[in-house]
């Protein structure tokens, strides 16, 4: 039987429409050939729906919302008979222009729907925008009927994850990637076998919400610089169309969903790096795209004089704990989980999400509470970058509500400093390896995302190749990017042919990776570090859409032994649950040894509070406790000193024998291929070298 609400009640210029149902926000298909439009504004005095044929400058229709179509602060209507594949839409809002009061209404502007599920107008990456077109980013309607074929979010227990942080375009844009669809979601699909071989089981994608790569685009030293990373959201519900081969056909959502389904099919989770702290509209000089012209005082933190407060370092700050914005964020996260089967989120500058509507940090931020306890997000991984550009630093103290994990910046800094020779960092190094119980004791080691490199800063290779940043090509006289890198070039700055320096760099990379992948807490790798990818010393490549950022896959062949080292370390971690224990369990187990214990060059002898450059940690994996086949012992020895040292080894129970699994000077074993040691009492560890021993009953 036909529903009554499929009958139009109004007509304008041949287009038929009627009042909407208020919910859902955005544009969605409804029964009877209709599209339901719904948009919020508290301060506007009126609203007009503006309809365009695809890529046309002028609209073919404008339909003002009649007063009876507004309920509360929501304008909604159903329009009939539109061809969704040849349709783009936006809104005009009526209201006062009074920036000093935070009001930026201008009915001459057509604005993007904050809930648009697809954004047209910039569908092809790098295609220069038509600056004369006043409506750049256009809402589009998509069918939400993807056939998931039984897929759902994977819900891998967090302690089992090995996260791989990556940029969709950087991963395959370089010709050496050898894929058919470079720089796209489809290109990433072609590289899934590689990810499986490496063994990571979670990819964290740098921003894939629609952004404008031409935001602040400029030339420097003959280079075209763009907003490459995309930490500047245009729309929170639409995937970056420029990352889809199929976007010109309006099928970017299908392509992304297919990518996620295929990753899931290979046992790989997908986490999105989400940027809710600010938008692409910048400060008062920025473009008017959406939020500013729709309800500026709701969406942004403003001073009493109407100026934008800038806690993000990017011009504006989202008013995240405003009740309406809270709902936008929640709706967005729920949408990505339910419509795209995303497994979790990493929140950029997440501390901004803990600020109140006056900008001050809240003790119990309602947004973080709501996200932690949301029904749809109940099994998602939630990771905070627990600081912001306004000086709020919450690593170890982020309001977690029992759910939130954090990028453990202290893990990164300690590991870097210690490995380059900071003896005073040793005591902290021990705590970081144990899962940072001093920071996350009230939570679990799952709260600690351990890493040594991420998109911000040097790649691993550059960390051991450069003392200072080399960001000249970013066009800001090398002023941008962090100066505090804790890096060391091992004796020569940048490229060198000195074999001693190159060998040391290789060892230093492996030393850090060995500790990272044998620490408690969740390890995260930066894409490309497994084959020594370089950014040529650039530690802030946010604007470089070229060889600086693109992974050069020829390095994989050159550095195959490093790749194998990382691949085997990941497999080793997966095989040994004792390293993944999240409980801060330090007590003795069924083996008669403590779960984890720390040692000096003499076994069982270490001053946990004193400085040092040589130490070892012993895991005792109790097969009963961990459900493994046999008891085993893992002994990780680290010599960060510039001289060789002899380590005495812990005495093993009768019948057990030490074998070498990894040595950063160039040995790594496949599981089962560990090399027997000539002697059981001691191990000579060369300068700046780490080694991992494994003992089983033989």
């Amino acid at each position: 039987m036909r529903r009554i609400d499929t009958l139009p009640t109004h007509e304008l210029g041949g287009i038929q429409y009627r009042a909407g149902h208020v919910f859902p926000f955005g544009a969605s298909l409804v029964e009877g050939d209709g599209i339901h439009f719904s948009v919020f504004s508290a301060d506007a005095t009126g609203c007009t729906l503006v309809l365009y044929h695809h890529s046309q400058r002028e609209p073919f229709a404008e339909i003002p919302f009649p007063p009876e179509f507004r309920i509360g602060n929501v304008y909604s209507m159903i329009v009939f008979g539109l061809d969704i594949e040849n349709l783009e839409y936006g809104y005009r809002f009526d209201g006062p222009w009074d920036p000093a009061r935070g009001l930026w209404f201008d009915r001459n502007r057509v604005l993007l729907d904050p809930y648009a599920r697809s954004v047209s107008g910039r569908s092809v990456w790098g295609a220069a925008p038509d600056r004369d077109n006043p409506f750049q980013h256009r809402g589009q309607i998509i069918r939400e009927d993807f056939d998931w074929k039984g897929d759902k979010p994977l819900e891998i227990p967090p302690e089992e994850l090995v996260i791989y942080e990556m940029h969709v375009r950087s991963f395959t844009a370089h010709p050496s990637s050898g894929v058919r669809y470079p720089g796209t979601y489809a290109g990433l699909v072609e590289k899934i076998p590689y990810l499986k071989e490496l063994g990571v089981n979670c990819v964290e994608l740098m921003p894939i919400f629609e952004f404008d790569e031409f935001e602040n685009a400029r030339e420097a030293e003959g280079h075209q610089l763009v907003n490459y990373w995309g930490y500047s959201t245009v729309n929170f519900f639409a995937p970056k169309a420029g990352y889809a081969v199929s976007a010109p056909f309006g099928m970017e959502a299908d392509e992304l969903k297919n990518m996620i389904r295929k990753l899931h099919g290979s046992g790989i989770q997908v986490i999105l790096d989400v940027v809710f702290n600010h938008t692409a509209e910048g400060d008062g000089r920025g473009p008017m795209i959406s939020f500013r012209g729709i309800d500026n005082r709701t969406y942004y933190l403003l001073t009493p004089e109407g100026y934008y407060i800038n806690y993000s370092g990017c011009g504006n700050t989202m008013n995240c704990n405003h009740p309406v914005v809270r709902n936008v964020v929640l709706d967005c996260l729920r949408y990505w989980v339910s419509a795209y089967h995303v497994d979790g989120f990493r929140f950029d500058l997440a501390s901004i999400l803990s600020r109140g509507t006056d900008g001050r940090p809240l003790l119990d931020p309602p947004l973080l509470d709501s996200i932690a306890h949301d029904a749809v997000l109940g099994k998602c991984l939630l990771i905070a970058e627990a600081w912001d550009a306004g000086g709020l630093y919450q690593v170890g103290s982020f309001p977690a509500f029992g759910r939130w994990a954090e990028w453990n910046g202290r893990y990164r800094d300690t590991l870097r400093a210690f490995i380059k020779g900071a003896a005073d960092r040793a005591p902290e190094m021990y705590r970081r390896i144990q899962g940072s119980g001093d920071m996350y004791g009230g939570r679990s080691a799952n709260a600690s995302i351990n890493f040594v490199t991420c998109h911000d800063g040097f790649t691993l290779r550059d960390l051991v190749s450069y003392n200072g940043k080399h960001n000249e090509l970013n066009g800001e006289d090398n002023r941008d990017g962090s100066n505090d890198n804790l890096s060391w070039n091992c004796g020569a700055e940048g490229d060198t042919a000195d074999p001693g320096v190159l060998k040391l760099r290789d060892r230093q990379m492996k030393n850090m990776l060995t500790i990272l992948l044998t620490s408690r807490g969740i390890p995260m790798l930066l894409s490309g570090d497994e084959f020594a990818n370089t950014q040529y010393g650039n530690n802030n490549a946010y604007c470089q859409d070229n060889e600086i950022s693109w992974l050069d896959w020829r390095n994989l062949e050159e550095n195959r032994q490093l790749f194998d080292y990382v691949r085997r370390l990941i497999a080793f971690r997966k095989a040994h649950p004792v390293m993944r224990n999240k409980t801060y369990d330090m007590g003795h187990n069924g083996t008669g040894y403590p779960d984890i214990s720390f040692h000096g060059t003499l076994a069982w002898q270490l001053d946990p509070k004193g400085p040092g450059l040589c130490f070892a940690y012993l895991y005792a994996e109790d097969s009963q406790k961990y459900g493994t086949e046999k008891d085993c012992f893992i002994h990780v020895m680290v010599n960060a000193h510039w001289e060789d040292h002899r380590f005495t080894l812990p005495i093993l129970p009768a019948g057990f024998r030490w074998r070498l699994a990894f040595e950063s000077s160039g040995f790594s074993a496949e599981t089962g291929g560990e090399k027997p040691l000539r002697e059981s009492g001691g191990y000579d560890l060369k300068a700046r070298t780490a080694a991992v021993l494994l003992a089983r009953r033989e």
Partner: protein
Amino acid sequence: MTIEKKQEGKTLTLTLEGELNTLTAPALEAELPPDMEGIDNLILDMTKLTYMSSAGLRVILIAQQALEDRGTVTARGASEDLREIFEVTGFDDIITFE
């Protein structure tokens, strides 16, 4: 778009010419029997098809699902561009290319 229809036994061949989009997809849908009754194999000749949108893909997907396990959907003569769309959106799993 024009559609030429030929049925031999339980094999239905449709030759498509022009653009398969929201406006023309219903015409393709109309040529298919309800629930694909009496059809085991659907062959879509795409040699002269110049464009396919999301609506077109969906008509094909629904036909394939109606066939269940008893037959296949075959795309014949699809251009590289068309095959690309099938591939990157995952629709290539459900049809056979010739």
